[in-house]
């Protein structure tokens, strides 16, 4: 586990054990769940997503989150696909508070790493820092389940001369989370 992965794991733990202060606990929320991501004409990369909304900061509108997706949990599961991991922090803005269908925009900032395994491929770029926007729709029924569908764009994708070749620019994703605080 490299230093970035250690930092990311610590962030996940910190978010999971965070308890909102008593006076605001009723409106701060924490959702934990699965993220299924598919790049256009390329891999499935699946993983986890956590998002938090604080009562003191645009409650139930602004969601800060962290996520991890990997082809190890998608296309590379029992196949020869390349193992690649993406770690990201996110900030999402949801419209139509208290409605069932909520349009949203999200900005992710993160780190991508592909494992080409053999030394002969060390000449090829396999990592990238990125900023990727998403727009989509959230579905929020009257239970703690939250589902978000979105389309995203990652400008850090490879172009054959720079950037990792297996990082594709257009992706769709579905995140299904369960509200574990303030259900």
């Amino acid at each position, binding site marked *: 586990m490299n230093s970035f992965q250690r930092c990311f794991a610590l962030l996940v733990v910190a978010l999971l054990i965070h308890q909102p202060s008593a006076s605001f606990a009723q409106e701060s929320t924490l959702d934990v769940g699965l993220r299924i991501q598919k*790049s*256009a*004409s*390329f891999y499935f990369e699946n993983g986890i997503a956590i998002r938090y909304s604080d009562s003191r900061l645009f409650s139930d509108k602004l969601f800060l989150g962290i996520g991890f997706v990997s082809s190890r949990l998608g*296309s590379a599961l029992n*196949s*020869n*696909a*390349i193992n690649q991991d993406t770690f990201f922090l996110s900030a999402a803005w949801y419209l139509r508070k208290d409605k069932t269908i909520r349009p949203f925009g999200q900005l992710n900032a993160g780190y991508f790493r*592909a494992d*080409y*395994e*053999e030394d*002969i*491929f060390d*000449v*090829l770029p396999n990592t990238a820092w990125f900023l990727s926007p998403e727009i989509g729709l959230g579905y929020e029924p009257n239970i703690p389940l939250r589902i978000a569908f979105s389309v995203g764009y990652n400008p850090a*994708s*490879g*172009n*054959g*001369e720079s950037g*990792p*070749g*297996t990082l*594709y*620019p*257009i992706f769709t994703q579905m995140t299904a989370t369960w509200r574990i605080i303030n259900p």
Partner: protein
Amino acid sequence: MKKLYYLLFLFLLMSACDSTPDISDDFLDGDVVFDASIAQPENYLQSYANPNPSAQDAAKPVFIAIHGYSASTFEWDEFKTFSSNRTDYFISQVLLGGHGMTYDDFKKATWKTWQESIKTEYERLTAAGYSNINFVGSSTGGALLIELLASGYFDGKIAPRHFFLVDPIVVPSSKLLSITPLIGPVLGFTEADNTTQEDRYWYHYRHQETLQELLDVIVRVRKQLEDGITLPTGTTMKVYKSIKDATADPVSAVLIYKGIETSSGGAIDVEMVESDLHVFTRLALRSGIDSKDAANQLRTFNDIVSRGLN
């Protein structure tokens, strides 16, 4: 005013969807310039040059050279020139199906049509008695050869001895290709950045349907590689890949390396080449070629022939 904007929008949309480019007679796309192998197959295909080989000739290696998407037999002309004084092997330069003719012929062809002419030459050669078959494929030619292997085409047939893939494409460098089904119908076609001379050997206009075919075949090959492909007994493969390539992402070599094994479970050979050219073995009509490019070409031709003769 609103109506005017609406009409302007409709006009722009219709212009964008225009799928009939203005084709010059100097382009391969037109109905004047054709690939030379169509009129004179005996100069390009060994099965036409010598359909009744002696036992000695039938045992010599034949390199079936396959060009890439939107290209023509010209892509392997320099290999033919390099080999012009050799009598110990033969070269068959195959023109992919749907290629080398008009824009409309190209537009109508599917990737299976492209692949058909590879099968035809292989079958003509083996039927004529040639037993030492080798394939050399560049770019999409490489992907089409991998597809033949994965789909079991060679099962029960004379196994090719060697596969040599130069800058094979499995992952495109332009990731826009991945959304061709979405934007293609709006674009209609794209234009290649060819020189005037290159326009006689590569299509200038690429209809979006041909780009979708290209996407279809490389996605199919990627999935075949993910499932794993085993070479026939006694067959080897070597991939030569430029480390920078604006057409076939160099990571294609990683996918091929991971996805193909020899019949004994061994790894295939891969050479990452210090080059920024796509199909670095084709130097003719390029500008800015230096001694390193010439050395890469020569070393690769020598390596292909040397391995093919073993």
